[in-house]
């Protein structure tokens, strides 16, 4: 029947549109283990929605094991790509640098020591108890990170410098042998925070 024959002129057009959509979608997606730039969110007209999208992109960093492992909920740090509890069984201690019997810097030197598979930084320690993120949703992390009582007394503007410039945070992008770096670069993450703040620091639903 004539009516059942496909419209041959429509098929290439449909393929073209579909392929074009794929290309556009691919361009909007972050590269493998990368971060999208703030500019790539400009097509989101609604500022609040754009802000949410910016934080969602930043969330790839905040929920990465390199960040989560030292933002535990509780007193035990975590380690590895799957957030298993730290071995040996160390604890936070009163200042976040461990208990008297086993302080963090005893093993964690001022720089990564790859032969021993030990990460390092001069200030290696846990994020404060109230800044624990492990297991929380991105919405909850967002609300928490904006709360000065739970973010180290920082304004949202301060967060740009903390995430974009702090060298201990920066370790997440140079974590040493056998550990996956956080997505993108610290500079890109800082740019996302800055754009998120400028758009009202809205939290994802």
């Amino acid at each position, binding site marked *: 029947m004539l009516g059942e024959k496909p419209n041959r002129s429509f098929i290439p057009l449909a393929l073209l549109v579909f392929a074009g959509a794929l290309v556009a979608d691919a361009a909007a997606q972050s590269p493998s283990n990368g971060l999208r730039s703030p500019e790539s969110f400009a097509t989101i007209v609604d500022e609040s929605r754009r802000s949410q999208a910016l934080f969602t992109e930043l969330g790839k960093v905040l929920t990465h094991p390199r960040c989560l492992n030292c933002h535990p909920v509780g007193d035990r740090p975590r380690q590895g790509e799957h957030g298993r509890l730290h*071995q*040996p*069984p*160390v604890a936070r201690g009163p200042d976040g640098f461990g*208990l*008297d*019997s*086993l*302080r963090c810097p*005893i*093993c964690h*030197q001022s720089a990564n*020591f*790859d*032969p*021993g*598979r*030990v990460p390092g930084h001069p200030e290696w320690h846990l994020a404060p108890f109230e800044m624990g993120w492990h297991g929380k949703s991105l919405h909850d992390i967002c609300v928490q990170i904006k709360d000065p009582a739970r973010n180290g007394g920082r304004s949202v503007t301060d967060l740009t410098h903390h995430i974009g410039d702090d060298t201990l945070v920066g370790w997440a992008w140079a974590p040493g042998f056998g550990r996956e770096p956080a997505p993108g670069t610290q500079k890109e993450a800082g740019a996302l925070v800055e754009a998120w703040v400028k758009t009202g620091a809205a939290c994802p639903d």
Partner: protein
Amino acid sequence: MTTLALTINGRAYGPMDVRDELTMNDFLRETLGMTGTKFGCGAAQCLSCAVIVDDPNGTSYTSPTCIVPAVGFNGKSIRTVEGHARNGELSPLQKAFVSHFAFQCGYCTAGFLNESQVLLERLARNPVPRDKLEATITEALDGHLCRCTGYIRYHEAVRDVILADPELYLAP
């Protein structure tokens, strides 16, 4: 290569050039031949490799050696299991370990000994009440693994040494 100089059991070593990748455990065992410090898990999870570090502020603490670079000990003063006995006489802790038959294969003993010694020194500075002693010992030795399961005997040995001198180690 980095220049390393340190004090071990009161004796100066170095300055000498060592590879940046050399672990402290290999430095002690292979470079200096001090094999009393053991290599166990290689991941600081058993602490059989722990040595005592004497902090310039007068306190002491233990450090694993298997995952820490030798150059990380530059300028420091440490004690190993070889440094506990004096003139051939075992220290009170060593005697207690023997009398309690705390160790069997002995592989973990150097780590337990050093940790226990640090505990004694900490209690001498900050004594604890008798009712907190058991928890204090447990916490101090936590993290040290003994495949022969000598935990209770180690605990009892340390407790005996402390109770033998309550004025030094226990708060009134």
